[in-house]
């Protein structure tokens, strides 16, 4: 049975990278909470995770003039979406500091959780290697 370290760690490494990216995007929202005309952005973790694992349902384009389902842009192919503001601001800024803080905290906890799962897998591998 071939054993690959990549498959032994499961989807955790990709999840960790995506969580790191999301913390970057959310930090930039919080940093620009007072910048006029700045629009808050975010990306959907689930969709990106599916994409990273190659499980995304893609729409087939059979003609040259068909428009692809998901345009790739943003950070290394992560399409960022603008957040829908809950209330308008006079200076055109759409950052809601509370929403961003909550999202940042959630993302940090998820990052820690992924780390915990990952170190569990690593411990399991170590046990298997030692064979004690």
């Amino acid at each position: 049975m071939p054993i690959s370290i990549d498959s032994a760690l499961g989807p955790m490494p990709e999840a960790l990278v995506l969580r790191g990216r999301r913390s970057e995007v959310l930090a930039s929202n919080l940093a620009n909470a007072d910048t006029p005309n700045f629009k808050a952005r975010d990306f959907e973790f689930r969709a990106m995770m599916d994409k990273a694992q190659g499980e995304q349902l893609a729409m087939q384009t059979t003609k040259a003039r068909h428009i692809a389902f998901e345009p790739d842009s943003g950070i290394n192919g992560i399409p960022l979406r603008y957040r829908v503001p809950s209330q308008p601001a006079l200076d055109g800024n759409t950052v809601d500091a509370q929403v961003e803080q909550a999202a940042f905290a959630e993302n940090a906890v998820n990052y820690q959780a992924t780390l915990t799962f990952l170190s569990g897998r690593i411990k399991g591998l170590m046990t298997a290697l030692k064979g004690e």
Partner: protein
Amino acid sequence: MSLFKTFDIAGSAMSAQSVRLNTVASNLANAESVGATEATTYKARQPVFAAMLKAMHGESEAAGVRVLGIVENQEPLQQRYAPDNPLANEEGYVYLPNVNAVDEMVNMISASRSYQNNVEVLNTSKQMLLATLRLGQ
């Protein structure tokens, strides 16, 4: 490593907010600095923030903050009758700065809250990075 970029982003925001706090301090300190002419009198200053799109990291869309510049408040100055003041003109008037203390206090509170927000972001990112370093131990 995107978590290091988070440090840059939060750091840029903290420096921008401290510039804002500096202008508030300068405005409040000079709230009573009268002048002889309209041109030489102190005028309230405000920093202008802008997002640093793509300037910080080539491949990234995340943005820090930079201070585009400091603008002076263009509201007309008030005059006060003070014939004893050595700066007074022939009619006995001096010019007062157009600093609004209430505006400045609101600015100060907003800047200090934003600063604290970014310190929290920095702390959380630091903990996340340290936990990543301890991975597998």
